[in-house]
């Protein structure tokens, strides 16, 4: 861990000014990811700008009938918020499927979006890694890649985005509110995270001088027919091997609209609009689910240890859609899969 200075931001404008003044400054929110990375020398900020005192920790109504999550709401407060539990249970269960109670008490919603990959090599400065040090190579492609991506990979990087919360946010088509030197702007969730391409060191489209102030949830919460199905190596406190956020708008047995986002398979929460549309106005049968699953996974590519994810993801999609259609979401921390 290196030496760094520490300041506490007084307001959003001040936070942006602080971060813009120093190329190696970093915001610190819950610190659950950043501190780990600093201890491992993966991230070496010269200055920490503490944003935890900014008044961005409320959940409020938006004019369009949706909800606004302040960037500094904790993951726990969000998941257990009465409105979220009732109107966006998909988000609630995705958050609760992640990490541990202690971590969720500290972790913030903004920080969750920006958490880095759990690729073993990324965390170990003794190894080459393009994401950590561009140009050094990717150790995972020909190395141990059991937890790595099968979709949207590049020759430079096959890491996944590890968040559960973000998978639900992708399905709900949330919008990220950010403020930078040049003012405020919004980033649709699908455009927030990036694929690795030849710039794997850049995880997302947030500019270095920008702060996330809020995450907006559109009105439609899919509270009737949803599930977050997370498959992992143990019943809790493990990142997803594959996860599926499924949200259906149903009319009787007919699906009007389907949202399917995958976690654990790509550098960002993975969606395939074309495939999802195959379910529009179709009935909820396992045959139809199978077809969509095939379409979503069609271009998947394995790298050896992670090749099993291709088959697993397909089956997980089918099961998740069945759960969502039946109105029987997967209970949290229950190893038995409905």
């Amino acid at each position, binding site marked *: 861990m290196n030496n760094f200075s520490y300041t506490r931001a007084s307001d959003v404008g001040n936070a942006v000014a602080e971060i813009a003044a120093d190329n190696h400054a970093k915001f610190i929110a819950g610190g659950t990811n950043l501190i780990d990375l600093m201890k491992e*020398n993966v991230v070496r900020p010269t200055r920490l700008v503490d944003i935890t005192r900014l008044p961005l920790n409320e959940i409020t109504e938006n004019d369009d009938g949706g909800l606004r999550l302040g960037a500094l709401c904790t993951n726990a407060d969000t998941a257990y918020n009465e409105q979220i539990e009732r109107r966006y249970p998909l988000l609630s269960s995705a958050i609760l499927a992640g990490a541990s109670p202690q971590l969720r008490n500290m972790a913030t919603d903004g920080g969750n979006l920006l958490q880095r990959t759990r690729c073993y090599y990324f965390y170990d400065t*003794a190894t080459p890694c393009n994401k950590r040090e561009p140009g050094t190579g990717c150790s995972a492609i020909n190395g141990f890649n*059991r937890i790595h991506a099968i979709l949207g990979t590049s020759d430079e990087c096959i890491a996944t985005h590890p968040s559960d919360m973000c998978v639900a946010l992708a399905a709900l088509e949330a919008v990220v509110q950010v403020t930078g030197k040049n003012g405020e702007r919004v980033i649709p969730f699908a455009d927030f995270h990036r694929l690795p391409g030849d710039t794997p060191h850049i995880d997302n489209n947030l500019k270095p001088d920008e702060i996330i102030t809020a995450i907006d949830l559109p009105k439609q919460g899919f509270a009737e027919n949803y599930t977050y199905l997370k498959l992992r190596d143990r019943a809790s406190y493990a990142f997803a091997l594959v996860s599926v956020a499924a949200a259906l708008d149903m009319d009787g047995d007919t699906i009007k609209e389907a949202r399917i986002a995958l976690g654990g398979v790509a550098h960002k929460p993975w969606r395939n609009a074309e495939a999802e549309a195959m379910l529009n106005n179709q009935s909820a049968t396992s045959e139809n689910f199978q077809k969509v699953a095939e379409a979503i996974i069609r271009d998947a590519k394995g790298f050896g240890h992670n090749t*099993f994810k291709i088959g*697993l993801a397909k089956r*997980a999609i089918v099961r998740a859609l069945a759960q969502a259609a039946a109105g029987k979401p997967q209970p949290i921390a229950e*190893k*038995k*899969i409905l």
Partner: protein
Amino acid sequence: MATATNYIGQPTSRVDGTAKVTGAAKYAAEYNVPDLTYGYVVSSEIAKGKITKLDTREALAIPGVLQIFTHENRPNLAWFDSSYKDDIAPPGSPFRPLYDAEVKYSGQPIALVVAEEFEVARYAASLVRVEYAPKPHETDLNEKREEAYEPPKKRSGIPPPAKPRGDAERAFDNAAVQHEAEYRHAIEHHNPMEMHASTVVWEGNGKITVYDKTQGAQNSQGYVAGIFGFKQDDVRVISSYIGGAFGSGLRPQYQLFLAVLAARELKRSVRVTLTRQQMFTFGYRPDTIQRLALGATADGTLEAFMHDALANTSQFEDFQEDDVNWSGLLYKCANTKFTYKLAQLDLYTPIDMRAPGGATGMYAIEAAMDELAYKTGVDPIELRLKNYSEKDQNKDKPYSSKELRECYRQAAEKFGWSKRTSEPRSMRDGKELVGWGMATGIWEAFQQKASAKATLGLDGKLEVGSATTDIGTGTYTIMTQIAAETLGIPIDDVTFKLGDSTLPTSPVEGGSWTASSIGSAVKVVCDAVGEKLFKIAQEMDGYSFADVDYKDVAFSQGKLRLKRDASHAVPIVDVMRYGKINAIEEEATSSPNYLKQNGYSSYAHSAVFVEVKVDEELGMIRVTRAVNAVAGGRILNPKTARSQVLGGVVWGISMALHEETYTDHNLGRFMNHNLAEYHVPVNADIHDIEVIFVEEHDEIVNPIGAKGLGEIGIVGTAAAVANAVYHATGKRVRDLPITIDKLL
């Protein structure tokens, strides 16, 4: 025997429980002394090669940095390998930290930065610039099969493979039913909660006190004295509390060496604590490939049993464990052949991990027996009973006791085994396939020579001590119970001291021998105090002790009593007053009674039954029930005993389904070196576990009749889980852990 059962056998809560939950219990890295300095270890980034440049200038320039120790400035230390050999060292040439520029494994300590503050040391460590000339390395056991060898020097205490009996190859070839397969398990790291740490206090008079995380205070003491040229008495090692070790503390680890080195050079107190990542840079359970070949008649009678193990070791020591002898103890068979080979990898030397060799060898044996059960169509319990061995065939000796049949019976009944349909995939519950599997466990009941001392004060308080340690197993508690019972003193008036090299000699805590070895020493020394009391009492007027022998008296409730008439009693403090003594002090040693024990083999046994449910499409496995029936001789404390077995079962489940250290063979490096990615079960993975203690009387094994329970709980469990997974799915996964990717 001068006892009446008051404390032994009672479910007594841990005497150190309050200290542990209130934080009063101090661990090695928690002793703060004035002017303490902090060391931070720099670890090698390559697996093999030479350090060509080690530039410490930038790091040394950081204010607060005192010194950086490397192979370039290390002082001259003991020359011969023998000085570096601790009590548990396997044959070979022990690793010497900071010895020269050679890198032998990834993660090897190559420098120690010492500073006034921990944070400064850690920061400076990141500024040490190292250049290497790497050499090709090999960390994959599979690639070294051809170079496997039988270890020329045997490790002390580890029986080499038993001599072949009959002609196993031929019997196998001629057998009506044959089963041959290879089994493997992953490298596992102990990962105790407490990281290894040593706080070395520079006493200023040529003496040091070392608070060390170790399973053997005297083992660390001897190691330090031998290497650094201290007189034995000038090194005092203390390890009062240990936050788990599971074998990782059996040998002195490199943080101890580095902390002492720095303290001696700087003449300052130094603490070195390893990081969680560095907990993956020394011993581990070795990768092992086991080939089993079983031949049987059509009805399942064993005719041939062949077991070949190939395990990895380092390039410098021949670590060995006993994987292959167990079937010779459990199953009657006229034709057997066992071999055990090693292959050297560019890794550190493995170290014993809970039930070393047993957890692993028995996994392969019991999985193979299950496969044989299916091939012969004989029920798995039936098959084991059919081949049940009444004697240790490896040594041709009877057992001092063996209630394994009863273990099978009681566990099967509790579990409801009779309702099992044997066909794989024949039981289900909704979307889940249900599997029931069982396996046998066995672990040797060791007794080692050990000493203890006891001091009885005029206030009626008894202090007993031995240099052993309590790695969380409950040693403090059961020793207190044994002492309290032997001298009939209220348990609250008894204090047991351990984890201090100045206390009477004890072996390292391991092998499940502590209860029997230290327990026997405690009993013997308390009896010595008792005899002294008795001798004085014999002279006291008004009592009729003069006419009887020591064996005719007993101690209870603070009094010495006649056995035949317990009301004829004298308070022990009265005896001491009469004898005009303020304290009785005794020291005694208890050694195994070879005359009595040599004719017998002594083992603890168990039968483990497990239910798994497996999602048919998604391959998610959960262990919904486990029953483990243990025959372990006398149960000294059912509460701590149960905890030991429960923990063992959890670890067995972990071994079967979760635990694995991932090696990147390109880099020759362990990659999941943290507790987020190195998976052990969480609470949600563990459901019902039932522990049954089967009654077993053993007058031969040792004076207290206990066999030790620290390890038996894990043995057999992994196989039972694997067998249940097969029963559920019809899929036989022969390499542990059985993760989702292997099952799909």
